[in-house]
């Protein structure tokens, strides 16, 4: 079998001004993930690496660059799965963690569970020595703040559907 590494960087009504950043980001993620795939022959290591690259890139709605809640906070979620034995790790309602995907992998490999969320997931992260960024809010970008401002203006104007933004990454109602 010839190894393959395939990535996506999100779907929606992405403004044309963001195309180049998306192109550069997905190519970078594919290259880095593929390098790990060849080096380790581990699909699991490769997909984690590819996602980690995009979690550090503000062109994407994950990790640094995540969109904001109504309370102007970042809440992230992630999942990872192996096809050989269906083991999986899932996390939700994470705050101030640089790589949610790596915490999802820790859930898969170090707990008897599939899915941790909220306070329990954050406690697990601390116990595993995962860095909790301090002060809080370091994953918030200017683009995400502008997108939320635009959303709130539209909401006040009567359009209450989440996700609406012409400067953010996502289309109306799209995550």
């Amino acid at each position, binding site marked *: *079998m010839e190894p393959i590494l395939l990535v*996506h960087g999100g779907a929606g009504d992405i403004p044309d001004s963001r195309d180049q950043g998306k192109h550069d980001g*997905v190519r970078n*993620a594919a*290259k880095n993930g593929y390098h790990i795939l060849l080096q380790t022959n581990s699909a699991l290591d490769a997909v984690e690496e590819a996602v980690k690259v995009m979690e550090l890139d503000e062109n994407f709605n994950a990790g640094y660059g995540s*969109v904001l*809640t109504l309370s102007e906070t970042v809440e992230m*979620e992630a*999942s990872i799965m192996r096809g050989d034995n269906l083991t999986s790790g899932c996390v939700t309602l994470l705050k101030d963690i640089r790589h949610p995907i790596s915490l999802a992998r820790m859930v898969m490999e170090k707990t008897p569970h599939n899915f941790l969320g909220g306070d329990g997931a954050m406690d697990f992260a601390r116990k595993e020595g995962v860095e909790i960024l301090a002060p809080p809010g370091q994953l918030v970008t200017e683009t995400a703040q502008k997108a939320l401002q635009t959303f709130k203006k539209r909401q006040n104007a009567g359009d209450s559907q989440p996700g609406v933004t012409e400067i953010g990454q996502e289309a109306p109602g799209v995550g």
Partner: protein
Amino acid sequence: TVGAVAIDRDGKIAVATSTGGITGKYVGRIGDTPLLGCGTYADDRFGGVSTTGHGESIMKFVLAKDIINRIAFQGVGAQKATEDSVKEMTKVTGGTAGAITIDKDGNIGIYFSSQKMSWAYQKGNEIKYGIREGDCITEKV
């Protein structure tokens, strides 16, 4: 949302998906990304899928597993399964989405019902990428 699907030399498949959700979501809202079968699914017998788009629609349709089921039970390849499933999800729910798939034979599926979805893959010394419908730009590595 970002996602990755890989198949190694031994045919082992893995999938990862990560997201910040949607702008202006309620605190405590959970989307499709961390839900198995919705945002992520992998089964070496059939393939692996990562999805992105309108989470509430993806959850209702269990999109990732629906794509895998089409490969498993209809015997179709990754592209047809991905395209048919995303189209049907949009028809049924009204929401838009995208998905990337690699089936057990190493075939690739990429489809989105939204206006755009950025994607890229490397196989050998070539990277292909795009963002609009019909895009497929090739670069030698």
